């Protein structure tokens, strides 16, 4: 150990994020090419603008600006009077123009905030800025890894997809906070209807992590700017999921703490997260900020949209909806959390609650449906085309046509496993509750067919009634309620 070596527990972690999210618009940000690329052939969604052909001029997509203003409203950011676009110059074949159109000095969203919960505690992280930019194309390194490849293939289908880059202050103190923040951010973006988490590459995160002396962290978690400037930080790139962010940053945190503990200096560098190996690796250093030679994009006039903040409506956001679910439907915290986890779940719950009892709706959506989906590693989106069938199942329970037990243990499970409709399953499995008349005639039949048991019953033999109940249950295919049958038999025998 050297003199500088420090005990790990005296160290504090400081993390800041740059989150890139693809905005769900129909067309690209500066041209009218469709963003609905899916698995289409490479280079089938391009035009002179997104291919960077000489003389082509970008024209801003109104839909992308609206989406950006919605983000600004959701994180309570300022939309400045005037916002502008810049060119960020770097030479890499994923950029056909050799520059990326982005925002620099006057981003569309400034000084926002996002609240989230982590391990039961409320946290708020400041968003420094959020700006619009174009996505580059995608590269394939053929015949080896990025360093050893023989050649490169380029597809510009993705080039020009609208991106929002959301930059936080270095307010995170643990990788788990980053994960919770990203979950909340994507939840809000989905509520706004401008983000599709299922789309490949829809979320990309760069994270800055540095380690400072624990004594530098104030009571409220703040760390002095000078202290941060002095600490060497690494930028971790290539993170593409909430879970990946937590894993990458936990790795990086340990790596840096180990270095400091051994009295080594943490190199200020960019590192690449290798998801499959679970490690971060040093990347060849890239350009410095000044090397990007930012300058105004002369082909795009200024944007004055601060008044759009009033004009554009955004839907009720998750926090507000959770609160309303608690008060309006009398749900407990856990159910309210589950039912607002995505907009799709919340919308479906409200639809069911409107038709049936809210308590029944909460049980069936939050506990039964989400539980069974979770067990099968399925998402709500996987059954969104079958909401009417699930509502029919709840109806069968609500109207007492099938027992809760059968609905839960047979019908719902078979619906998810085999894709059948609830009515088909009820029919096939003979689960329809037998009508009172049918039960009554089964009771009479059972008594007629089993005089010995009837005699035993009258002699006070306790087992006899159970035998008769069993007979009736058999006759009704198990769809009668055993308690009811017991009572009906006693009435008949005593009567």
């Amino acid at each position, binding site marked *: 150990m050297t003199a500088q070596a420090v005990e790990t527990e005296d160290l504090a972690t400081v993390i800041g994020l740059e989150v890139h999210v693809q905005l769900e*618009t*129909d*067309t690209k940000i500066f041209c009218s*090419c*469709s963003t609905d690329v899916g698995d289409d052939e490479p*280079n*089938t969604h391009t035009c002179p603008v997104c291919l960077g052909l000489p003389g082509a001029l970008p024209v801003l997509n109104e839909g992308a600006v609206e989406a950006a203003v919605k983000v600004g409203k959701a994180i309570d950011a300022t939309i400045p009077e005037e916002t502008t676009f810049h060119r960020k110059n770097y030479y*890499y074949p994923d950029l056909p123009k050799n520059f990326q159109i982005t925002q620099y000095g006057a981003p569309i969203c400034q000084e926002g905030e996002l609240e989230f919960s982590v391990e039961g505690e409320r946290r708020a992280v400041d968003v420094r800025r959020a700006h619009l930019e174009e996505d580059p194309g995608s590269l394939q390194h053929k015949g080896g890894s990025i360093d050893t490849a023989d050649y490169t293939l380029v597809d510009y289908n993705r080039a020009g997809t609208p991106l929002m880059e959301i930059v936080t202050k270095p307010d995170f103190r643990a990788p788990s906070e980053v994960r919770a923040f990203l979950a909340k951010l994507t939840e809000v973006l989905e509520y706004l209807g401008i983000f599709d988490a299922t789309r490949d590459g829809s979320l990309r995160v760069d994270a800055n992590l540095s380690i400072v002396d624990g004594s530098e962290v104030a009571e409220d978690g703040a760390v002095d700017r000078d202290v941060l400037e002095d600490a060497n930080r690494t930028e971790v790139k290539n993170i593409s999921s909430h879970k990946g962010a937590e894993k990458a940053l936990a790795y990086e945190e340990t790596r840096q703490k180990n270095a400091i503990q051994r009295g080594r200096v943490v190199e200020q560098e960019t590192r690449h997260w290798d998801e499959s190996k679970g490690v971060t690796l040093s990347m060849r250093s890239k350009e410095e900020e000044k090397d990007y030679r930012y300058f105004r994009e002369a082909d*795009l006039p*200024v944007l004055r949209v601060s008044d759009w903040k009033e004009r554009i409506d955004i839907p009720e956001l998750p926090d507000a909806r959770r609160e309303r679910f608690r008060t309006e439907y009398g749900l407990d915290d856990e159910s309210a959390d589950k039912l607002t986890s995505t907009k799709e779940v919340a919308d479906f719950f409200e639809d069911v609650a409107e038709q049936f009892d809210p308590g029944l709706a909460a049980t069936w959506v939050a506990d039964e449906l989400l539980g069974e989906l979770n067990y099968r590693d399925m998402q709500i989106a996987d059954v969104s085309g079958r909401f009417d069938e699930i509502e029919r199942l709840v109806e069968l329970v609500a109207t007492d046509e099938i027992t809760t037990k059968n609905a839960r243990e047979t019908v719902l499970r078979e619906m998810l496993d085999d894709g059948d409709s609830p009515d088909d399953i009820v029919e096939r499995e003979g689960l329809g509750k037998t009508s009172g008349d049918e039960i009554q005639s089964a009771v009479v039949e059972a008594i007629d067919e089993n005089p010995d048991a009837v005699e035993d019953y009258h002699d006070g033999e306790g087992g006899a009634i159970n035998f008769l109940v069993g007979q009736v249950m058999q006759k009704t295919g198990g769809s009668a309620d055993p308690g009811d049958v017991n009572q009906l038999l006693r009435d008949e025998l005593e009567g």
Partner: protein
Amino acid sequence: MSDTDRVVDPEEVRHVADLARIDLDDEEVDRFTEQFADILEYFETLDEVPEVDEDEELANVMRPDEVRDCLSQAEALDNAPETEDGYFKGPNVS
């Protein structure tokens, strides 16, 4: 050599070439150092342009979010020196 205030030295030329991923030999660096200075001098001519009234500034030029036809894959790749399976093909770019 020009007499502009801004001195362009060979080191700066090498750096700019590096950013542009252009490989220059020493002789080219010398030649470009001179030419850079000359080019910057041409721009000084702009200082002699008389001031005119600025055009009314444009703002909020946008288009609706409506899809229009794209180029076909063949059209998109038409000018590419090399292609493979519908992709543009280029050298390794680590």
